[in-house]
């Protein structure tokens, strides 16, 4: 079957709408795996869904503000405590860390992971375009995906994170600076790049996540 074939019953996925940029492509990219997708800021729906997608573009502080306005940090915490899957993308990935510094403004993040989101030390910023990355052995997010490039667009990132026994960290490099490209830890997976804009490789990665949601997708 192909990714565009409808599947019944696909898992039920909420894309969290908290006023952040273009979420239409995230919605479409998830929908083409056969999942049922709802875009909403409704707290109960976001907690109850089989999977929650937290997108994000723009500035760290503005994203945290928008996320708080819909009780996002608590929704994410509640889901993680109940072992319910969350996929966070770009600034959605960044706000999972302890804090962020953009334009000299320091803001607290969700604090799920330790570390600071800071400006990358590359000559050419934003880091914009298709880059390679190095997943750790056994990555479920990148299962079956080898030697593919993914689409990044950002100037900030996390430059230090320890991969513990349970935490799989994928790294990428731009202009000589190494940063966290993706993290998998229990029910929480996140990517600095945009799988929803990364063509066929991105579609495979999203399908890998949807497959973990318990719905019968294949």
């Amino acid at each position: 079957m192909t990714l565009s074939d409808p599947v019944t019953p696909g898992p039920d996925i909420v894309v969290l709408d908290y006023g952040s940029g273009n979420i239409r492509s995230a919605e479409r990219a998830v929908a083409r795996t056969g999942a049922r997708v709802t875009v909403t800021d409704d707290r109960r729906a976001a907690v109850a869904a089989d999977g929650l997608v937290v997108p994000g573009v723009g500035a760290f502080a503005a994203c945290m503000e928008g996320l708080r306005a819909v009780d996002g940090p608590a929704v994410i915490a509640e889901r993680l405590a109940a072992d319910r899957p969350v996929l966070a993308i770009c600034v959605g990935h960044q706000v999972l860390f302890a804090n962020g510094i953009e334009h000299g403004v320091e803001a607290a993040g969700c604090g799920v992971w330790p570390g600071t989101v800071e400006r990358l030390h590359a000559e050419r910023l934003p880091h914009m375009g298709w880059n390679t990355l190095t997943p750790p052995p056994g990555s479920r997010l990148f299962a079956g995906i080898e030697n593919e490039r993914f689409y990044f667009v950002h100037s900030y990132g996390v430059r230090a994170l320890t991969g513990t026994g349970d935490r799989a960290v994928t790294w990428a490099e731009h202009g000589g600076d190494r940063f966290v490209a993706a993290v998998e830890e229990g029910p929480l997976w996140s990517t600095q790049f945009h799988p929803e804009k990364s063509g066929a490789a991105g579609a495979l990665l999203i399908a890998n996540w949807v497959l973990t949601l318990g719905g019968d997708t294949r």
Partner: protein
Amino acid sequence: MSVAVRVIPCLDVHGGRVVKGVNFVDLRDAGDPVELGAVYDAEGADELTFLDISASVEGRETTLEVVRRTAETVFIPLTVGGGVGSVSDVDQLLRAGADKVAINTGAIHRPQVIAEITRRFGNQVLVLSVDARRSPDQPSGFEVTTHGGRKSAGVDAIAWARRGVDLGVGEILLNSMDADGTTAGFDLEMIAAVRAVVDVPLIASGGAGRAEDFPPAVAAGADAVLAASVFHFGTLRVADVKRALAAAGHPVRLT
């Protein structure tokens, strides 16, 4: 490894249709930007750019619908430009499904709009499109033009690119109006002059005729290359350009 040089086909859209002829075989409707976008996506384009050249409000609404339909079917980044002059213009395009928005004349008329847009949506969302040509009247020897290169804006192109970055744009699309349509190659001196004063990504446009024209643009400082007619008329395929770039030692995304 490092970030790949992006190869970007550009479609001029008027009232929801692609203009400036497109000559592809196996297309049901060569004027449908959505169908063409999907073809370029399948051919390995790294990004798509739509330039809306509609003059009317109705034309704009049709273009928004095209952006919506494209976002349904194409899963690579989409930049949309043409007639953008306000935060609300950008908001509409992003809501329709654009990932980035290109601004041109609107920023020349009111440069501060760059800061207004990027404060709201981030630097990465805004591309400053600079239509420039050689001119002895400006210190750098390059001036900004409007009206498709027919009128001088009375602004130094290199200084304007730099100012755009200072005001917040995340990328520069540099189009040589002298080279545009000549298929005689990119204006390498102009690319190098802009590269010397900005640290954001730079897209080179205008003048591509052969696959061998592209690597020198990258060597001169471009991070991405954009072309229209050579792709539309089938003179070159996206893969031809990538092969030439790879042969010259530049990283490309292979699909």
